[in-house]
């Protein structure tokens, strides 16, 4: 069996935990995020003949009061940068976190999730910004944790990229 560490990164309240909760069943309480800044969950993903055991490090959202610890990202094989489509400021935070992750885990694969697609009419993130991300070589997926849109696809895609 293959085991992979992946991280969920993004600004505060972009929906990282909601995305994870859509994807896994957890044994740890959410209180760990506010204490040590990370909560870990697990999910088995099967790709063809390969079973992959994903260890999801749901890292506390970065804001003015708490910075993401780079050590949590080290050793990750992949990570999600989660951006809240309805809050434009989360775009920049996401890009900064991407740089941090790239630095901590240079070999890791990245997928950018523009979350809250159920509120697409209220989006502040523009098509231009999304197009820029794609042109910079990022894999971008629009998700909705609330309506369970493209969540499974996102995790499967990152897994596929990691074991390629």
């Amino acid at each position, binding site marked *: *069996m*293959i*085991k*992979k*560490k992946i991280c969920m990164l993004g600004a*505060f*309240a972009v929906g990282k935990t909601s995305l994870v909760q859509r994807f896994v069943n957890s*044994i*740890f309480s959410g209180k*760990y995020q506010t204490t*040590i*800044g*990370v909560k*870990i*969950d*697990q999910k088995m993903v099967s790709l063809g003949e390969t079973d*992959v*055991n994903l*260890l999801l*490090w749901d890292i506390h959202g970065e*804001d*003015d*009061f708490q910075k993401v*610890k780079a*050590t*949590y990202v*080290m*050793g*990750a*094989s992949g990570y999600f940068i989660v951006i809240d489509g309805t809050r434009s400021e989360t775009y920049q935070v996401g890009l900064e976190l991407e740089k941090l992750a790239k630095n901590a885990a240079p070999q890791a694969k990245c997928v950018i999730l523009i979350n809250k697609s159920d509120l697409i009419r209220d989006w502040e993130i523009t098509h231009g910004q999304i197009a820029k991300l794609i042109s910079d070589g990022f894999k971008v997926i629009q998700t909705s944790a609330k309506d369970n849109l493209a969540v499974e696809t996102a995790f499967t895609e990152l897994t596929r990229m990691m074991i390629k």
Partner: protein
Amino acid sequence: MTEKDHKSNLYSSISLGQLTELRKAITGLDSEDLQRLSRLIQDPELFSIEISQLLPLSIKKMFERGEVDEEQLRKFVEQVLHQSVKSDPGVMATILFPIMMPAIRKAVAEDIKRMVESLNTSLDHGFSPKRIGWRMQALFSGRKYAEILLSNAYVFKVSQVFLIHRTTGLLLNQVQETEIKDARDADLVSSMLSAIKDFVQDSFQRDAEENLDSIKVGNFNIWIEQGPYAIIAAIVEGNVPGSLRLILKEAIEAIHVNFSYELEHFQGDTEPFVLKDRFLRACLLNEKKEVKGKKPVIILILVALLLGVLSFWTYTRVETKLRFNRMLDELDATKGVAVTGTEKKDGVYSITGLYDPLVGNLNNVVKLHGFDLHDVKLNLEPMISLDYDLVLLRARRVLMPPETIDLSLKRDTLIAEGDADNEWLKRATSLVLHLPGIYFFDITKVNEEKIQQTPARQLVKKRILAIENYYFVFKINEVKLDSLQKIDFDILINEAKSVLNFRFDQDSVPVIEVFSHTSRTGHIDANKNAARLRAEKFVDLMLHAGLPIETLVPKVIFVEDEKVPFPVRSVSFKVKYVNPAAL
């Protein structure tokens, strides 16, 4: 003319009233309002009072409009609290003191309660011989049972060992004791452990070489040993010996030597580590307290004491049993006694059987063998024994031969030899055949020539002695003669009639005192009353048998006052000669 001069000319041409009206038209405020606002701005204290009235309403409105997020506010409050604690922890401690102390007390009380319940459960379920031994050890050494329990249980035990990839935090392999059934998902535990390690190192690390090497969680210790690519985390219970650290170091070194390539190029494949788990298994250690060769002195004393008590108890029981058997043999060998059974109940021996009242008081036999009458109860029913000695004894009692007559028994024939008067001979001849075991009375050897020399006074004295030897034992609250007692009673009445008809002189007449014997044991007045009734009832029997009422005196006597006591609940007799005027 300059612009300044132009304005000055303009202001001077407008009156004050016009200016006031103009100001009101522009601002909508009159001069009073403006003065109030001016005072507010100039006086900070007044201004703050004014604002304080509006601020709560303003915050409420902001919440309603969603302009303030609770999460943001919480963060802000937390940061302020954090800063406060950082600058002066004493202030916050003083504020929290009234809240924290009851909470701490409650938590401590709960913990103690849980501990007591846990201990009680252990005590309730721990009755193996070994645990009973520990309990005795605790009792005599004054140490707590829990302390003894711990000292005899595991000193330490490594229950689970994780091998974790250092960079990724992924679990490479884990081994555990087979009896752990509900092990949490090891992958998650491993990653979380790794996160905690990173968190601690990031937060508290002062030196790059400093690593988190142990975590204490309740009774568990998590010992961590780090290598360049992997770490070992061992879950240990109990008092961890320092030598375990060396064992973990050796294990992690061996793993790095044996899996150097796999560790360096780890891409998530854990199979090589799972297949070779001997290095981890070597860490699954436990150590039990060694049994010391030297036995505790207190245990030896205890064992000796127990043996002593046991020996004494055994000796006492055996000796008592042997003594009882000897007494039983003696009773059984006594002529006129037939033991039919024995029983021991509640520590009291009970002997059942038959006895001839002529044998006398058998309680003396019991006492002679060292038994108390409370320990041995004689439940013997009366009978007439046809034993040679008893038949002869009964004949002597009944016939009361003069000293000049010698009685003997040959099979079923009573032989009288010697000198006797005619009156005795007649009386003896009439009585003898009523005696059980005697069918013939041989008087051929009686010499009737000397009868005139036998004094009647001597005969009466003998009869008096005979009367005074009789006694009748009754059941509680009952005066009823059984068949054997009836025979004795008839003889007694005959003797009494003979005695009452004889006067030694003119100044005295014979009376028979009927003594009812009782004891001071229990309720004295009740005993005395029962004895009095017994004596009166027996006197009634004697009256019915023909004895004159004025010659019978019922009396009560306590056995404790007698030199030679009669049995309790018995009736005996005493012949006295008294002045006729006293009757």
